[in-house]
């Protein structure tokens, strides 16, 4: 039994949500529309249990037998000449950790959504898309080669599109979905080019051959060292698109048009971290491209800073969280980029990036879900200026949000503290030596600044929402109700996770040591705790919270003053440093102009040509058409004519026989 499980648990993980999806799509529309969430929750529970089993038993079992990963071939997809692409599931330590995170967060979000989405006319559609998403995400993580990864990379993008545009009758939602899809295309283009290049260079796309054989990489490295830069930069472009990094971060804040559970699951916890996963997965390549890693760190820092600045002044609660997500993803990329500083640092850089991704998934999910709960209570109003003082009215939401906010801000001993602190530590280590010490010192400075701002804007949102005088918008009715049990349960679990999971897995090195089993990760020295950075980040977190308390609770007048004095800077922050505007003005508008020229050409030149061609049969037709005038006798006359012709032909033939 255990043997069977060890071998087959891996395909159970994606199969369960796929079955749920098929059930909902085929049957759920008709039977039990109200209970469309049940197959998904059941499937995700199976999936979660399976990934836990994989994490705790199957994979260690495989590692004992000195296999690097659990592998389950499904079938041969493409087998043409030298091209050979099997559909194979492959789980190593990194995948197992990621799967556990994905399935656990999805399970909780699904339970939350079953109550949150109640009464929506598209209830089954929502859960069908969500099952498809979880399936695609699991397959993305379990993919054993780049091509399969790309397929499901696109699939999660599609699900994201479907779910952002879930309320497609809202023009803003439809536009946001389109925007997310189009912006993602840019990144995907880079990714597929990178995959082509890998294919051309190595002749294979299998992870196991690519990452588990340093000999091959070293061979290529000796022959053409610059090729790794190209591969890595192209792969990174893919990651930039999916993980909403500068300059492609514009789609993520707009993606908040989707239902809140979607924002929590896809646009905070799972899909957007796929880029981080991709870069971490390709660490064996990236270590040979130090300049690309510096680019990664630079882009990450720029993104983190820009997003944090923008988040400072937003009034839309979900947008604050969205910008915060972008900022935290920037953190992860900063950490990944720090691998470029030295050979030994790469392992820790990747570990801490993945660890931050892990903790971030929980506390950002709880933040988003709490924001969803606020929305639920406030009658779908999300503008923080229209409500305040919800502390009394929504106690559960208040506490869960507070837990998430504390974790995000990096208050000592909570999960955000551990992961963020480790990123700061690895950056500090990178800036201590090596030829690019100055560069990494700048990055560290930005990271610290961002950390301060993170604490500030998180608690700004918290204080604006839950403190101050009690105020409800009209849409809420008189007595806003707190989260029902189906929403409160997941919130509480996630809040506990947000508070404790960092402490449980961070300082004990549970996560790190497990991740180190991933094949292909370079060796690293022991990384000591950086007490200095811990101290600084704690101080920054407390300072940020204190500043927010001062400005938004004690004396709100200062904010108004500041707004007036620094109106230019305020406006810039409010509008996201005009990056969106810039994109529309200088990229979208010229393209639109070009498109209109093409349209003109199509309409007046090509259409005219086609019409000309179409005119010829019409001309012939109009010549013959009068025959078809509906008079039976006309038709009979034609028949007679045909008879005459036939007879005369026969006659001529007979005359010929004489």
């Amino acid at each position: 039994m255990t043997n069977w499980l060890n071998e087959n648990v891996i395909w159970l993980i994606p199969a369960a949500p796929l079955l749920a999806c098929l059930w909902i799509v085929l049957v759920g529309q008709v039977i039990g529309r109200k209970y469309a969430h049940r197959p998904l929750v059941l499937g995700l529970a199976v999936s979660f249990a399976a990934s836990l089993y994989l994490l705790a038993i199957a994979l260690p079992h495989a590692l004992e037998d000195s296999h690097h990963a659990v592998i389950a071939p499904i079938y041969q997809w493409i087998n043409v000449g030298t091209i050979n692409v099997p559909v194979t599931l492959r789980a190593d330590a990194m995948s197992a950790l990621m799967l556990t995170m994905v399935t656990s967060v999805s399970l909780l979000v699904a339970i939350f959504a079953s109550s949150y989405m109640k009464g929506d006319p598209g209830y089954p559609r929502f859960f069908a898309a969500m099952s498809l998403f979880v399936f695609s995400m699991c397959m993305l993580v379990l993919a054993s080669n780049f091509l399969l990864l790309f397929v499901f990379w696109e699939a999660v993008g599609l699900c994201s599109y479907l779910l952002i545009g879930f309320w497609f009758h809202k023009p803003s939602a439809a536009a946001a979905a389109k925007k997310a899809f189009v912006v993602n295309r840019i990144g995907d283009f880079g990714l597929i080019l990178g995959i082509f290049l890998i294919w051309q260079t190595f002749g294979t796309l299998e992870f196991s051959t690519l990452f588990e054989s340093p000999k091959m990489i070293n061979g290529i490295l000796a022959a053409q060292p610059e090729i790794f830069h190209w591969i890595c930069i192209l792969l990174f472009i893919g990651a930039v698109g999916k993980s909403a990094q500068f300059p492609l971060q514009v789609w993520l804040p707009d993606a908040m048009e989707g239902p809140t559970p979607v924002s929590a699951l896809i646009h905070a916890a799972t899909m957007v971290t796929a880029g981080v996963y991709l870069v971490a997965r390709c660490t064996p390549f990236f270590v040979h491209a130090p300049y690309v890693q510096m680019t990664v760190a630079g882009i990450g820092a720029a993104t983190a800073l820009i997003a944090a600045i923008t988040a400072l002044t937003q009034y839309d609660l979900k947008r604050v969280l969205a910008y915060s997500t972008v900022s935290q993803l920037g953190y992860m990329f900063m950490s990944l980029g720090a691998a470029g500083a030295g050979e030994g640092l790469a392992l820790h850089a990747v570990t801490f990036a993945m660890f931050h991704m892990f903790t971030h998934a929980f506390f950002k999910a709880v933040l988003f879900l709490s924001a969803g709960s606020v929305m639920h209570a406030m009658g779908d109003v999300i503008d923080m200026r229209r409500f305040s003082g919800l502390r009394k009215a929504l106690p559960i939401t208040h506490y869960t949000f507070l837990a998430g906010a504390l974790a995000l801000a990096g208050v000592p001993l909570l999960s955000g503290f551990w992961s963020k602190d480790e990123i700061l530590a690895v950056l500090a280590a990178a800036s201590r030596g090596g030829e690019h010490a100055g560069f990494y010192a700048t990055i560290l400075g930005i990271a610290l600044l961002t950390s301060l701002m993170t604490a500030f804007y998180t608690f700004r949102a918290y204080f604006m929402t839950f403190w101050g005088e009690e105020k409800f918008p009209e849409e809420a009715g008189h007595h806003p109700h707190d989260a029902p049990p189906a929403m409160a349960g997941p919130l509480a679990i996630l809040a506990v996770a947000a508070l404790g999971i960092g402490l449980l897995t961070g300082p004990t090195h549970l996560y790190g040591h497990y991740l180190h089993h991933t094949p292909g990760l370079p060796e690293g020295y022991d990384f000591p705790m950086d007490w200095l950075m811990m101290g600084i980040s704690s101080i920054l977190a407390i300072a940020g919270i204190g500043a927010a308390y001062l400005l938004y609770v004690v004396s709100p007048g200062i904010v108004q003053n500041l707004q007036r004095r620094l109106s230019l800077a305020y406006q810039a922050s409010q509008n996201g440093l005009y990056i969106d505007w810039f994109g529309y003005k200088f990229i979208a508008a010229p393209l639109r102009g070009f498109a209109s020229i093409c349209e003109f050409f199509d309409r007046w030149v090509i259409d005219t040509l086609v019409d000309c061609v179409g005119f010829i049969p019409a001309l012939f037709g109009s010549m013959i058409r009068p025959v078809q005038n509906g008079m039976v006798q006309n038709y009979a006359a034609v028949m007679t004519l045909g008879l005459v012709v036939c007879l005369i032909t026969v006659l001529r033939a007979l005359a010929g026989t004489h």
Partner: protein
Amino acid sequence: MTATVLESQLIVGATLFILGVIGFLTRRNLILIMLSAELMLHGVSINLTAFSRYHGNPQGQVFTIFVLTIAACEAGLALSLILSLYQRRKSLDVFLWGKLGEDDLPVFSGSQAPPVTVTADPNVDLPHLTPAGRMPKTQPGPQTKT
């Protein structure tokens, strides 16, 4: 020029057949059109019996009996059709039934005859064919769900 008995019979049959064709093509009265068709059948029947005698076996006569049967069927059906057509337009004029043609063509009205004005009967709800090669007129569909 001489002809055998068979040939003379065939000539008569052919003549009757052709006269039937001419009548079918020229007359505008629905009933006369049907009568002309019967005339053609007579021509064919003469041929069949002539051959029957020429070959000296009853096959031709048997065929004639079948022709007779079908002619009876045809007459019955044609008359009931003509009756119901007559009810709609109160006329036996075949020009009033040119709706099988393309919609945008003028109603055919012969060479010398003055154009026939078709008065549309509002009670008549006949199916309308879409003119070939045209987009069918679609009802403005229900608004998409907003």
